[in-house]
């Protein structure tokens, strides 16, 4: 356990340069975006000079890049993550929106894990037969269709036409309002998980130790479980873990189509408006979460595969 602790601590230290690097990079990118962020606030009408002057002052928009960045960092260390142009605090936004994104991500994750692994195993066991071919073709189609097409079609078919699920918004609560967006969100990853599971299981089933297990006279279900799955699912689990981290990042397109008020939506509008502090704050938070999840996945990998445990 001490080894695990030290490893985790070492990885944790890496977060620090990542934090600075990310905030700098994103801030720079936002800064480099064409257009005056204040002008973007004027939709059709132009904001008047006094108001613009106020914003310039408030958000240090007049300062050169480095000054802005350093002022921002200074704010962070006093706990001020910044605000939107309208005065809503970034921390507040995060607290309000992250749970939504989290729910969506977890729901999608459950779909992708259960369906992906389930069908993948089934396809591997029935290699060459109908279900195998069907799942391969189906997953190829899912990978090929752009996510927004899938989203709109699903929304129209299952929401508007059939009325099985709410069309948009989360007022119907969990799980009903989240199911449709979660499935669409999971679709691409599901295809990958399915193929990965199938491939991994097929390879594992060709391994020597499977032959040994049969020579031991073990029943086929035990062989599948302890010899087949326990080995073949290792790469699948690590993929799923990394995917979960990515899902947390907020699916901008899905959130837009289904009007889910998560981090993705907020990022989209903040980027459009040029609200650098919001984008930096949210992206940095997401990066840290991503790193955390990845760290957990790595530790989990060690739990699952004893061969890499004692590195």
């Amino acid at each position, binding site marked *: 356990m001490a080894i695990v602790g030290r490893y985790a601590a070492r990885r944790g230290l890496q977060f620090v340069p990542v934090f600075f690097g990310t905030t700098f990079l994103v801030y720079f990118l936002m800064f480099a975006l064409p*257009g005056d962020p204040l002008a973007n606030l004027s939709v059709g009408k132009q*904001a008047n000079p006094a108001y613009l002057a106020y914003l310039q002052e408030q958000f240090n928009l007049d300062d050169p890049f480095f000054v802005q960045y350093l002022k921002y960092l200074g704010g962070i260390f006093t706990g001020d993550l910044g605000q939107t142009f309208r005065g809503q605090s970034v921390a507040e936004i995060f607290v309000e929106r992250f749970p939504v994104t989290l729910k969506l991500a977890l729901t999608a994750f459950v779909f992708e894990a259960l369906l992906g692994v389930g069908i993948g195993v089934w396809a591997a066991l029935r290699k060459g037969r109908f279900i195998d071919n069907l799942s391969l073709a189906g997953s190829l189609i899912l990978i090929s269709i752009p996510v927004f097409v899938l989203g709109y079609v699903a929304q129209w078919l299952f929401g508007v036409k059939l009325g099985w699920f709410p069309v948009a918004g989360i007022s119907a609560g969990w799980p009903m309002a989240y199911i449709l967006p979660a499935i669409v969100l999971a679709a691409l990853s599901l295809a990958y998980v399915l193929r990965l599971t199938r491939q991994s299981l097929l390879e594992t089933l060709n391994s020597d130790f499977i032959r040994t297990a049969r020579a031991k006279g073990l029943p086929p279900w035990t062989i599948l479980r302890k010899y087949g799955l326990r080995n073949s699912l290792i790469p699948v689990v690590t993929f799923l873990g990394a995917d979960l981290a990515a899902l947390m990042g907020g699916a901008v397109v899905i959130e837009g189509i289904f009007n889910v008020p998560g981090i993705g939506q907020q990022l989209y509008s903040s980027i459009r408006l040029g609200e650098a502090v919001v984008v930096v704050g949210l992206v940095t938070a997401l990066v840290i979460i991503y790193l955390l999840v990845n760290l957990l996945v790595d530790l989990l990998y060690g739990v699952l595969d004893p061969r890499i445990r004692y590195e």
Partner: protein
Amino acid sequence: MFTKARKKFTIGGVALASALLLGSCSSSGTDTDASSSPSAVSGGTYSIAIEDPQTIVPTDCYELYCQQVLSATYTGLFTFEAGESGAYEVTPSELTNSVETTDDGKNWEITLNPGFTFTNDEKVTASTFVDTWNYTANGGNGQQLGFVFSPSYLNVVGYEDVSGPKTTGETMSGLAVAKDDDLTIEVTLEKALSPEIFQNFLAGPQIMPMPTVGLKDPKAFDKQLIGNGPYMMAEPRTGQEIKVVKNPDYAGTAGLADGVDFRVYENKQTMWADLQGDNLDLIPDLPNNALSSASSVLGDRYVNDPGALSYSFYGFASDSKTFKEKDVRIAISKAINWSEINEKIWFDTRSTATSFAPDTIPGGGTDLCGDKCVFDATAAKSLLDGAGGLPGGSVEIGVIASDSKDTQTAACNQLQTNLGIKCSLKTFSGFGEYLDFLSSGDAPDNFIYALGWVADHPTIQAMITIFESSNFANDIQYSNAEVDRLIAEGNVASDPTTQQQKWVEAEQLILEDFYAYPYQMRNTVAGWSNRIDNVVVNPLGMINIPKISVTEQS
């Protein structure tokens, strides 16, 4: 019960006749509304889609969506009502008793009716307005609507003392509560204004009055407004919804429905999907790809009225050598078949323009552009040839990618086909980038400025103010001293006829110079479900919330 008593108030100033129509007025000036009284049932709740209003604090609220929420929860000084001719005029609200000037437009007195209170029992008095307005103008507070009191608008005495980011003044000397009368507001302007303009400036954008607690802590106020209107927020707003319910203590005419649910959507596409899925009752605009099917899907639950206070125009830099010849500019105008574009791309939710002001504005709707705005490819070509052709042989049109790329592409094609000139598009990712480009001075000589304008209130002046030399929104930097003079004279003219005349003359001049001309007028578009009735949308895009009745109350 209350309403009958309240109707007995005297009105001063302008808009006398239209005020009497307050009770029965339900027409939006067109024929396709479903607002006849028999279906005016009370009770029930309905939902409206809005885009994220960011903030709903009245002094900071400029965008349509937040104004919409405020129109339900507040009663301000004025409303806009359609007159007999169908034109919308500024009208004192039930809160306002009279608006009078003591000296032809510099000193004003606005008298309020008693009895209006905020939902926290604080009375709505003159001090309420004075405090709210001072707060708004104060540069240190950074409120969007501060410009209402600035020299480019009302020009209230004492504005410079409070408006800069570092000024120390807290009150404008030109605003005061009348001595011994806490229901009268005194306003002193630097320059005289006509009654119509004075009221319009206060009506659009309207700064709703705020209770003291709101002015002290606007952040908390933003979460749950305390208003004085027919509806109130019974619970704080979430990021996705603002729910309002009937205000039982409202002093004015009550709304019909028991409650309204403002739902926040990220984009119009999702609004449309939800409307079709019977989950939403009213959408204030349709996504482009729904326009073709809207009338068949919605039938008569669809409004598409010309005359929204918004237009798109082409502008030419006055020092451009390419467009020096007026005939060249006119040729460009005549070479594009806008009605075809409006039909094919916009499914008739846009209309061709004959002047800057539609007929929903008093004095508007006359054909001031004349032949210059009429499509005629052959005539255009001969005009161009007669002027010696297009110097350089090519033009470039600026366009914001997400808004009107299709439109400008079609226009460009027509210029190429009908005039034989080359045409290309310069796309910008957003308005900010476009503005940057305009102010950088990098625009090439053959650049056509494709821009738009949305007016704040229904006056001709509001539609053409961007062509005033002093206006910071005058991006093409058009400058004609005569136009400036006419507009200024109209602003102070004390009778409506002279006023409109002056402004119409200004319009004519602009169209004579032809450095800018409108090519497309917007329509007011909205769609709703079969659960509600009585949907009236004014040319500013504001839905009359209290009038909507819920016919299907489950």
